């Protein structure tokens, strides 16, 4: 019966091309608007590292003053970053399977190739574990060694784009890059990698690009590096008058991530963090009551509310637009069915039950909805492609405007569900018309 109803639906679409096209267009435009915004929302809110999101954790500790005007928007949420002191202390723990402190810093790259002018580039200063913890793919070479990290050696890992620019895409492992007038040895080149959202550095923008290069965290002292990211300070800031005093201050500018073999191990680490904070509190730090969090990636992104409110509003508006389109479609479907009351009455006379007819017309509108969904996906892909063409390829922002397969499936699902709702009223209404009257007027 399903195939029969599908055949009748196709026949009806062919017999009423204008009404059917209008319905397909109405659903298509509504779905396109809806899916475009839903796609942006989905990519904003999606889990960037699903295979590890329950074993990789962000560590947060609240070292803010007790003063009520210190970050009044998030009085209970620990800050995203730690002080340098806390980061260095936490690195002493052997509880995590992997752990990395990190911040970003800006450098001047001085290309040795003819024709390339020096330019500013961002580097993530971090530990060896960063790459394995976050499953960063390598194109050439690998991570610097423990010895190089301890010795604060001048080594660098380039991203693919930088390697293309400096070395024409060749394997640059072992070659030298001049950065801030110093020579750095290339230990590896990472392949294209752009988590979206950029979960490991929410503080500096969840949709910022991954840095152009990576260097050992231990270089911070020998090079006396400044952070190129956000810094929030608590306590007396007037005493910060030197690099050393900044490093010892209560300013937060270092992100800290840990990985465990399994999620249960995080419990023991939480106890460790509490003990650490209590010991520091005894030393006069952490004025507020102990407040910390060790959240996995998924919970961390939810807690940080990284999806912009404007995106949520746009999603809501796009759904409202879809509703308007669907209301129009209900009218069109009703007009289409009311024009066929004699056929409906005839089918009733020949033995079709109301449910048979409701099923037949629901299938017809769902087929129209499916076509509308496909049109919507096409329009959405064209729209997203247009927006993306205005952006730099592979940038984190541009990634938000790429159609995700999950959204294609969602578009089909929403189209079918929406058309089911749209078809229900007209189908129920016309199937309930008294057949005798329609047969008489035939």
């Amino acid at each position, binding site marked *: 019966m399903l195939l*029969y109803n599908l055949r009748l639906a196709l*026949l*009806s679409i062919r017999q009423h091309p204008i009404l059917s096209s209008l319905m397909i267009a109405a659903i298509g435009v509504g779905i396109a608007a809806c899916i475009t915004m839903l796609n942006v929302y989905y990519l904003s809110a999606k889990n960037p590292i699903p295979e590890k999101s329950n074993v990789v954790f962000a560590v947060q500790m609240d070292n803010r003053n007790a003063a009520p005007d210190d970050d009044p928007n998030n009085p209970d949420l620990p800050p995203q970053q730690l002080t340098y002191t806390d980061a260095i202390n936490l690195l002493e723990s052997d509880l995590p399977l992997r752990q990395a402190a990190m911040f970003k810093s800006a450098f001047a790259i001085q290309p040795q190739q003819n024709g390339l002018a020096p330019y500013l580039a961002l580097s993530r200063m971090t530990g060896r574990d960063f790459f394995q913890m976050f499953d960063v793919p390598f194109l050439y070479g690998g991570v610097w060694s423990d010895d190089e990290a301890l010795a604060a050696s001048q080594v660098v890992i380039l991203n693919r784009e930088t390697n293309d620019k400096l070395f024409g895409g060749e394997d640059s492992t072992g070659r030298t890059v001049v950065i801030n007038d110093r020579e750095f040895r290339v230990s590896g080149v990472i392949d294209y990698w752009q988590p979206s959202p950029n979960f490991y550095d929410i503080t500096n923008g969840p949709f910022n690009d991954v840095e152009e290069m990576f260097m050992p965290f231990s270089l911070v002292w020998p090079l006396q590096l400044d952070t190129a990211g956000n810094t929030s300070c608590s306590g007396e800031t007037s005493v910060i008058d030197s690099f050393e005093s900044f490093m010892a201050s209560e300013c937060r500018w270092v992100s800290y991530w840990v990985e465990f073999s399994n999620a249960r191990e995080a419990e023991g680490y939480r106890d460790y963090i509490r003990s650490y904070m209590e010991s520091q509190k005894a030393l006069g730090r952490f004025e507020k009551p102990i407040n910390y969090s060790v959240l996995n990636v998924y919970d961390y992104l939810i807690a940080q509310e990284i999806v912009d409110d404007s995106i949520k509003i746009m999603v809501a508006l796009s759904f409202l637009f879809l509703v308007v389109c669907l209301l129009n479609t209900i009218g069109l479907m009703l007009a289409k069915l009311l024009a066929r009351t004699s056929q409906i009455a*005839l089918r009733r*006379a*020949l033995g079709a039950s109301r449910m048979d007819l409701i099923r037949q017309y629901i299938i017809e509108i769902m087929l129209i909805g499916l076509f509308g969904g496909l049109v919507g996906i096409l329009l959405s892909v064209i729209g997203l492609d247009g927006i993306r063409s205005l952006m730099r390829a592979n940038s984190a922002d541009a990634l938000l405007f790429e159609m995700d397969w999950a959204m294609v499936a969602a578009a089909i699902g929403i189209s079918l569900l929406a058309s089911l709702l749209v078809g229900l009223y007209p189908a129920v209404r016309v199937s309930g018309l008294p*057949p*005798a009257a329609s047969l008489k007027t*035939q």
Partner: protein
Amino acid sequence: MLKMSNISKIFRTRLIETHALRSFNLTVNDGEFIAVTGPSGSGKTTFLNIAGLLEDFDTGQYMLDGEDISGLPDKSRSKLRNEKIGFIFQSFNLIPDLNIFDNVDVPLRYRDMGAGERKDRIESALENVGLSSRAKHLPAELSGGQQQRVAIARALAGSPRFLLADEPTGNLDSLMARQVMELLESINDQGVTIIMVTHDPELARRAHRNIYLLDGQISDLEEVTQLPLNQNQSQSQRADHAAI
């Protein structure tokens, strides 16, 4: 057997009530061929619609093959309609977008019937009405008489026990009307009970029994054999009825 007892049907609008059937009583035995005549508005079509389970009645009892129709849910009524009743309409009521084969297929689609059996039944029904060669044609490609034969084939394909015909020859010329009537008679000979609404006294005379409806009630009930045989007598009787 079809038995209606004290059936009443009133059509109501905001301003008026129309009594379409008043205490209507009728029993139709298996294998009968009944002609229902009467002036416009006398309740012929209402009777046929109630008999065909297309319309509800207000009071009374309707037994179809011993089953009380009152209060049956839509699904059961549809099933009864599909399996026991065949319809033939004045305007043929074929679906213009479907070819002849698919038109005859419509009632069979609402039964749990395999494709093979449906095909056999459709081919047999079309053969019975002499239209096997036109199976792939659209209704618009056939003459009126041929379309009505397709409608008869559609009604017969489901092997109904009752055939309800509403002015089956009303849109046909006399030659085609005669052919259709002969077809109905041969169907009746095969045991199908036929109730035919008609304005044509000649056709009515060919039925076993003639029921004359007036103001929603049976005004006269006579055996066909008792009807006057000559045209003048028949006309004078119709004039008498009209004067009632």
